[in-house]
């Protein structure tokens, strides 16, 4: 039988730095391919993230169900989640800084923040 994951195991000892992190709302399927209709927004997002990755930007997406530790280990994200609950999600983080709450960004938005972080 699958055991519940002990809370201590939720915190990995080291987290490598990622350029763009997306904290998704709970969803059946992060690709938008599941359910009775195909979610074009999520497909657009996937495509945008793939484009960024092809330019050497590292990207990570976190699901509450599969990566609860990534939520829990980010104090700022958890603070927003506790305050705004569902309305907070998705949360987008660029170089550790929250750039958008409650919606997915456009490619231009992400690129702008990536530029700012560089300078």
């Amino acid at each position, binding site marked *: *039988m*699958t*055991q*519940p*994951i002990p*809370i201590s195991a*939720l915190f990995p000892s080291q987290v490598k730095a990622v350029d763009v992190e997306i904290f998704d*709302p*709970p*969803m*059946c*399927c*992060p*690709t938008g*391919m*599941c*359910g*009775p*209709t*195909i*979610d*074009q*927004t999520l*497909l657009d997002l*996937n*495509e945008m993230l*793939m484009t960024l990755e092809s330019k050497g930007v590292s990207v*990570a*997406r976190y*699901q*509450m*169900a*599969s*990566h*609860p530790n990534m*939520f*829990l280990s980010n104090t700022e994200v958890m603070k927003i*989640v*506790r305050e705004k*609950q*569902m309305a907070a*999600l*998705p949360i987008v983080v660029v170089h550790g800084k929250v750039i958008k709450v409650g919606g997915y960004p456009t490619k231009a938005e992400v690129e702008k923040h990536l530029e700012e972080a560089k300078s």
Partner: protein
Amino acid sequence: MTQYIFFSGKGGVGKTSMACTHAIRSADEGKRTLIVTTDPASNLSDTFEQRIGHQITPIGGVPNLWAMEIDPDQATQEYIDRAMAPIRLAFPAQIVQVMEEQMSGPCTAEVAAFDRFTDFLEAPDDGSTAFDVVIFDTAPTGHTIRLLELPAEWSESINAASSGNGQTCIGPAAAIQDAKNKYERALAAMRESGQTCFVFVLHPEAISIKETQRAIGELNKLGINNYRLIINGIIPPEGAENSLFAARAEMQSHYLTQIEAELPYLKQRMFLLAGEIKGVERLRQVGKIFFEGTAAKTFVAEHVPPQLKTLATPLEDVRARLQPNGHQRTLFFAGKGGVGKTVASCITAVWLARQGHKTLLLTTDPAAHLGDVLDSPVGDVIAPVEGQANLWAVKIDPKAAAETYKTRILEDARKRGRPEKAIEVMEEELNSPCTEEMAAFDKFIEYASQDEWDSVVFDTAPTGHTLRLLELPVDWSKQLDVKIFASVDTTAADDVAKKRFGKVIEMMRDPVQSTFTFVMYPEATPILEAWRAARELGTVGIHPGLVVANMVIPAGEAGSSFANNRRLMQEKYLVEIGERFGLPVAQIPLLPKEIKGLPMLAELGERIYGTEKVPV
């Protein structure tokens, strides 16, 4: 080492009786034995005549024997609880609630049932509850195969999830990562011939033989090789004193020869008995007949007095439930696999077509027998049935439907100008186990919403599976309600989808637009199963309108003590059907040969429903 015995075969062939007979025999030999059912419409409790349910329960009167009925709903809840435990600790209530609602989808139920099932293929950590023998009274074949196929697909999905995009559609990945090894061990145990045996129970009949060959073929592909056959329902010498049963015995001998020639596995035979197999004592008697070769006539039928009540429903009451009544009418045939849904739906569709109604006959049964009964091929696109005007037929093959669905989605993506790399990812994602279920349903809605038919006759999949399929539109409109992050584009698409589902649900609930017909043998267990299934449908606001009793021995042809005993037993249950369901009952007679081909279907339709047209 624990031995595993899987009982497989189409519902209604006596699988549960044989599984229970083996379980008692094994326990009586002093082996600690557990019998488990994964069938959503389980009948272990009925056979042992005691409450069992979703926990390991000792069976009264049989030391060393335990039983468990896996309850899919409860298994799902346990699975969700386990997966949600860390989430509940850390996240706000509103988020927890949304996640739980999303986990209540149909895919989670499938995952959970399998998850629970594999628990029994594991040696317990503490060694305390180890069994010498675990017997699985598995779900009807089509569904069983799907369950067994899943670990292979999941292993792929899990691999893809951990290496590729870290995304998968089958429940929380964290829980799955843990489960991966368990599923692999489960499949390994099933492949180990020294440890696991698959017992196929079949009747000496064409459809039963075909089904067994198909099922063995599927298991072969999964690397499972140890099979045994039990040929059940063989008419004993004393049965052949009656001319109807003698004709059927003759038919059986032909198929027994075919089985000998075509199925090269260890075989055992079991007789059709004059009375019902229920309760520990009678199961032990069956064991003596099966294992020791005691004569079948030692199984003495219980005394059943002849019924005084009239059993026949006026034909116009039956017809009123079937004919289109100014509306298009969809007729659903429900009931456990093997009770004659396909035969009943073919008879009805042919009868409607001959009355001049433009009729579409369709099936979602993954092991579709429609073409066998019509004696005319049925394909994946709607086509006229040759030799019968006004009749069209189509088969919804979940695998083919999934392919079509995939192609449509990917073409749409290409049209939207998505790059090839993104499309590759989508394609990979569409290989998830849920796609088939979803696509099959999508296809059903497509046909059910076509206005050109006077009648749509739906030969549904076996009960448990059917219910899940039919409950989908309700689940989905619920899921649409919680899908709150949709873009404008998606919201519009969701609205369209929701309207479409809404229309189908409304149709299924409206007795003018549809009739749910339950098909059953006039025997205790099939009646109980159908009644439970009907009650479950009632919870989604759908109520049956007609009952078809199949294989009824005609009163004039019960002229031997064997046939008479079986006829009396049937009469008792025909009365029970009337009382329990309070609905018109149509009767399909037991015939000297199998029901097959259009002329026979046409003749039977007139015998069962009459020739008179109901004025529209």
